[in-house]
């Protein structure tokens, strides 16, 4: 299977695209497509659940499935993923239960899964802060001489944050095994990337950090996977960090609360719809004889089952115990928190008595 990406020359500038041959067997190719297709299905279900009020808000990954799944597919079991709030599909591809992931958007808790169990950090909303957590974990792995890699997703918007710079610089200084996967989806909410930076490519920054830089078509899953896999394995074998810019497009608004008609045209969105990552990959798989109708029907059935489970779990789900808000502030609740908990318990008991 063919993959293509452009590397940043050490002295600056993008080198010509280079074709790479990927050693992925048919089962792995099907697995890659399955995760993308199921990811799109759970994403669509999450949008619908938001419209029905079951989720408070949701940041869709629609259009970015190749960038997220391709990158996650390059990780080994013991590696770590540090996602942002727009990486639900990537987190899904990593194996985290989708219902647990959506706790953040549901408002049932801030992070609904155990990060240690999945080696996935909580979805992070303060932009780029997670890039430093990934770098720190990678530094620790290197200090302990463990062959473990951290991959973090950063958006083009977050690429303007100071933490992105501090993370990349520190990762480079300590040759930390971390991969910075920048999904350039063209927008920081409403501001197009051309107004966020005066450069043709975020990948070019790699030169300044003294690390390999890669520019890849973020809607071509094989290329994303290939570039990520090379970066992950280089990091694992002592080669330090890599900056990858995956050029993609956010097909939905920033969140379900956004009105994208205020800042971009339907024509622009349609232009990218023709570059849909799932349709493109499916064409490749069909031409190679890897995907047939039975395979696709199986994914559809599986997707509907997951979507039904999401609806069952999330629609009309009750709020949790309000008193739990005191339970996890510290390992042991302080006397002050214990007293405040008693106050709330009394309020709740009184409210129940008057019902």
């Amino acid at each position, binding site marked *: 299977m063919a993959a293509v990406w452009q590397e940043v020359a050490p002295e600056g500038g993008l080198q010509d695209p280079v074709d790479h041959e990927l050693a992925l067997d048919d089962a792995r190719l099907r697995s890659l497509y399955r995760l993308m297709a199921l990811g799109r299905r759970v994403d669509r279900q999450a949008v619908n659940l938001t419209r029905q009020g079951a989720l408070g808000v949701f940041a869709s990954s629609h259009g970015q499935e190749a960038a997220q799944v391709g990158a996650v597919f390059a990780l080994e079991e013991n590696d770590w993923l540090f996602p942002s709030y727009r990486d639900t599909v990537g987190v899904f591809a990593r194996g985290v239960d989708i219902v647990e992931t959506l706790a953040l958007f549901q408002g049932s808790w801030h992070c609904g899964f155990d990060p240690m169990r999945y080696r996935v950090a909580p979805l992070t909303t303060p932009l780029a802060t997670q890039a430093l957590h990934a770098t720190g974990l990678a530094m620790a792995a290197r200090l302990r001489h463990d062959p473990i890699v951290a991959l973090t997703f950063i958006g083009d918007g977050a690429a303007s944050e100071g933490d992105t710079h501090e993370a990349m610089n520190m990762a480079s200084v300590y040759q930390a095994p971390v991969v910075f996967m920048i999904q350039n989806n063209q927008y920081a909410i409403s501001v197009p990337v051309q107004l966020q930076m005066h450069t043709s490519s975020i990948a070019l920054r790699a030169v300044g950090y003294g690390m390999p830089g890669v520019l890849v078509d973020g809607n071509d899953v094989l290329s994303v996977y290939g570039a990520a896999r090379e970066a992950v394995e280089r990091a694992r074998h002592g080669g330090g960090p890599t900056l990858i810019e995956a050029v993609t497009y956010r097909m939905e608004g920033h969140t379900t609360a956004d009105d994208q008609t205020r800042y971009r045209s339907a024509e622009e969105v349609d232009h990218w719809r023709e570059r849909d990552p799932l349709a493109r990959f499916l064409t490749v798989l069909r031409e190679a004889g890897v995907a047939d109708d039975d395979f696709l029907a199986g994914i559809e059935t599986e997707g509907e089952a997951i979507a039904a489970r999401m609806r069952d779990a999330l629609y009309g789900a009750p709020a949790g115990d309000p008193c739990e808000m005191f339970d*996890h502030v510290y390992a042991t609740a*302080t006397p002050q928190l214990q007293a405040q908990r008693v106050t709330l318990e009394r309020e709740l008991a009184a409210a129940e008595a008057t019902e």
Partner: protein
Amino acid sequence: MTITMAAALNTALRDAMRDDDTVIVYGEDVGRLGGVFRITDGLQAEWGSERCFDTPVAESGIVGTAIGMALYGLRPVVEMQFDGFSYPALDQVISHVAKYRNRTRGAVGLPIVIRIPYGGGIGAVEHHSESPEAYYAHTAGLTVVSPGSPGDAYALLRAAIEYVDPVIFLEPKRRYWQKEDVELPADGLPIGRALVRRVGTTATLIAYGPMVTTAMEAAEAATADGWDLEVVDVRTLSPLDTDTLAASVTKTGRAVVVHEAPRFAGYGAEIAATLSERVFGHLAAPVLRVTGFDIPYPPAKIERHYLPTADRILDAVAHTLEY
């Protein structure tokens, strides 16, 4: 033996690194130089550059990477070189260090110690004499401590490094060279407990960090007036040991809270409010505050007019007695 607070802190770090190989120390200039105040002196030579290392000048980076280190199972002890340079890391501290256990519903605690030399009185240029304790104490999820003596500096730092949750460790830099006759390793009260440093009956002085010494000086001077002042060292700003404070003020009926930071919405307001809530009936006078003024920290040549003194404390005590 007679030891400075700086040496006590250094010994605490050294002993912690000896006892637990997951303890690592990093920050700006903490390696070869041993820190601008020499608190980490010799640690890199003794434990190697994988256990004690210099970082780029990036405070958010230092704290943010400490989170990843703690996720991995290490116990990072990081240094903010000066109080005024701790602010770039506040996003990581407030958004993640303080909240990670809560965000993850108890699944992930972060055993991180963030050491910050703080406070004035050393003739420094601007941004080197700040007292940021209220920012940290106001942030749920943080444990905030500040030692008042060399022996307690050792005990508190050892306890902070062993702590299950993140600790903001505020070091009173003007007291780094103050000496105490104490044997190390020194035992101390656990985190979360205040210490009655001087037993008295006339009124209670409540202080922490650099002002503990000033409060003790005031109490000694007060004996000339026939006043027998009790001095309580808060030690742990969060969570506050209200029981020890309440017991002292119940006995004396009068309290003066002392800190270097500005008064308005400062930490002393929390203590005064807590005392009025808990022991109002025992108070013979309002709880008074002796604090810095509500100004940006002043230039070095006039800072002595800003910093609370024993005389200012005793004036406040007199007010409570005349009430």
